[in-house]
């Protein structure tokens, strides 16, 4: 969100005004991420939800500087990583790792599983060959795979097992922050819960903090302490998971929650389906980006971009960017 948050304490992660524009032909550009601000405490899991094209994956990559931001800064333990030179950034990545959606595409098929997990240790010159082999065995055990998996290739494993391999590789350097981009979306239902349990165990055992990106609101609710809802590159609502689900304020959040098909034939279906589709970020609407689809849009919404405002109760932070709450 755009509002400047006073920097009193050192957060694990402090993102302010982060933006990314991608150039298009003819001098035009797409604002994929537009002025995103939030802070994350150590051990906190922040869920980032939104539909395809809302900028949630770009945001995850910006925070790890896998792509370079156009504006704004990302502080990790108080240090602005957007200013770090390449070698210092590489060293910094020990502390921040990523897990991708597709465990088929993110593991080099020509490398053995043991080498894949050892690779980050080799790059950062950690331990002797024997120590690293021991660590690989420990990591495999941590993610629930047998030691002999080290000698096999990724294609010999199922989707769920490959995601375990990706997790072991991400854990090798003992990171504090893991950006998980749709980590269970490609997995079958009966396998998703196995991987979610593993991620929750690791959080408890290692004090990990996750930035958990997903389109699945039920999964995000299950893992997250805090929830950020994105629409067209902006965070439109941000608050504790309990308060956002119990009292969704932004009309987009309300529509998103109402649209989830729940495995319960008795659930009251009082939803008003949202009309239309996400506008092209190439031609974003004026004013509030959600106004063309918003059932409660007012004149003002067509002209003015709403700023995020604190509307929490009982000491819980809950920010919303909507003129209904001005």
């Amino acid at each position, binding site marked *: 969100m755009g509002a400047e948050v006073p920097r009193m304490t050192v957060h694990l992660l402090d993102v302010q005004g982060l933006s990314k524009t991608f150039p298009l032909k003819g001098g035009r550009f797409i604002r994929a991420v537009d002025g995103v601000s939030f802070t994350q405490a150590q051990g906190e899991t922040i869920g980032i939800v939104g*539909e*395809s094209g809302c900028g949630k994956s770009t945001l995850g990559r910006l925070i790890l500087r896998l792509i370079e931001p156009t504006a704004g800064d990302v502080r990790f333990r108080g240090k602005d990583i957007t200013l770090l030179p390449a070698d210092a950034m590489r060293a910094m990545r020990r502390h921040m790792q990523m897990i991708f959606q597709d465990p088929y595409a993110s593991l080099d098929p020509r490398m053995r599983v043991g080498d894949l997990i050892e690779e980050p240790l080799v790059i950062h010159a950690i331990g002797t060959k024997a120590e690293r082999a021991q660590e690989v065995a420990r990591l495999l055990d941590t993610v629930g795979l047998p030691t002999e998996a080290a000698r096999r290739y990724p294609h010999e494993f*199922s989707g*769920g097992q490959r995601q375990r391999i990706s997790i072991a590789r991400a854990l090798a350097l003992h990171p504090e922050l893991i950006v998980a981009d749709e980590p269970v979306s490609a997995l*079958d*239902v*009966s*396998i*998703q*819960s*196995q991987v*979610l*349990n593993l991620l*929750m165990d690791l959080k408890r055992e290692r004090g990990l903090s996750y930035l958990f990106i997903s*389109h699945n*609101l*039920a*999964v995000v*609710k*299950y*893992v*997250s*302490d805090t929830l950020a809802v994105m629409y067209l590159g902006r965070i439109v609502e941000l608050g504790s*998971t309990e308060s956002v*689900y119990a009292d969704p304020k932004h009309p987009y959040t309300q*529509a*998103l*929650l*109402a*649209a*989830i*098909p*729940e*495995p*319960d*034939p*008795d*659930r009251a*279906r009082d*939803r008003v*389906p*949202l*009309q239309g*589709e*996400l506008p092209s970020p190439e031609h974003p609407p004026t004013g509030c980006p959600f106004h063309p689809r918003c059932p409660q849009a007012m004149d003002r919404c067509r002209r003015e971009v709403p700023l995020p405002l604190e509307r929490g109760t009982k000491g819980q932070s809950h920010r919303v960017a909507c003129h209904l709450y001005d």
Partner: protein
Amino acid sequence: MALFLVEDLAVSFGRGASRVRVVDGVSFAVDRGETLGIVGESGCGKTVTVMSSIRLQPAPPSHIDSGRMRLGEVDLMSLSRTALGEIWGNRIGVVFQDPMTSLNPTYTVGFQLREALRLHRNVSAADARAGVLRMLDRVGINAPERRLAQYPHELSGGLRQRVLIAMALICNPELLIADEPTTALDVTLQAQILDLLRSLRDELGMGIVLITHDLGVVAEFCDRVAVMYAGRIVESAVVRTLFESPRHPYTHGLLTSIPRLATVKGARLPVIDGMVPAPGERPAGCAFAQRCPRVEARCRDEQPPLAGSPAHRFACFNPV
């Protein structure tokens, strides 16, 4: 009498020693105006089952080993390719998962819809155009005249899926087969498309077979549901019964392992251990036995039959 009846369907792939049975003894029925959901995880055989049941699954490489399929009075097994061609797109409409691969990128939307209609109906060009415009309007497409001249890549994902639905319904089919019709779409779009299919079903009175992996979609959209595991139906019931009192341990496991909005944050999720056995590696007895928390000795040797009442059948020796 059921609109669409499938009995004892078995399908295999490959030949000789490498021949593998992927669908084994599947039976189901769909009435007019009714929606049957076929659910299961990837590789359980749900798409092969349904596509083979209307003989749309390419054969070879697949082979229908047994099965009786009937649409109204027509025995689908006895039909020639030519006769099947008169049924597909006409009495049976099909919506596939990925709208980009099932529309031809080199023709306009209008051309493809007109062809779908003129293939089966002897109508003039003007009547075809009018019929197409009516159908586009019915599936909720604004400014249909403008869409006629557009190519599939010029449309958004939601519009493309609506065009596919229009194409499947243009000849007013009695049966609609929908294979994961909303899986590639976002939740707010999914809700729009499911609402649309529901109102079209009620208006046109067609029967629908919906293939999905999403139990939430089943709960919202289907009247009855068949759960598949490793090439067989392991449980079938009216939707409410299945969600309220699942009897097969696999169904029960699936329903409890999904995080729902009501799931307590971070609480340990119940899991189904292990993985689905590959088609060539299915055990002699119940295919779920090696993952089942309620397994008994006979489960490993004997295949449990799908038994019970028409309102609720399950294939299990030690049901929940």
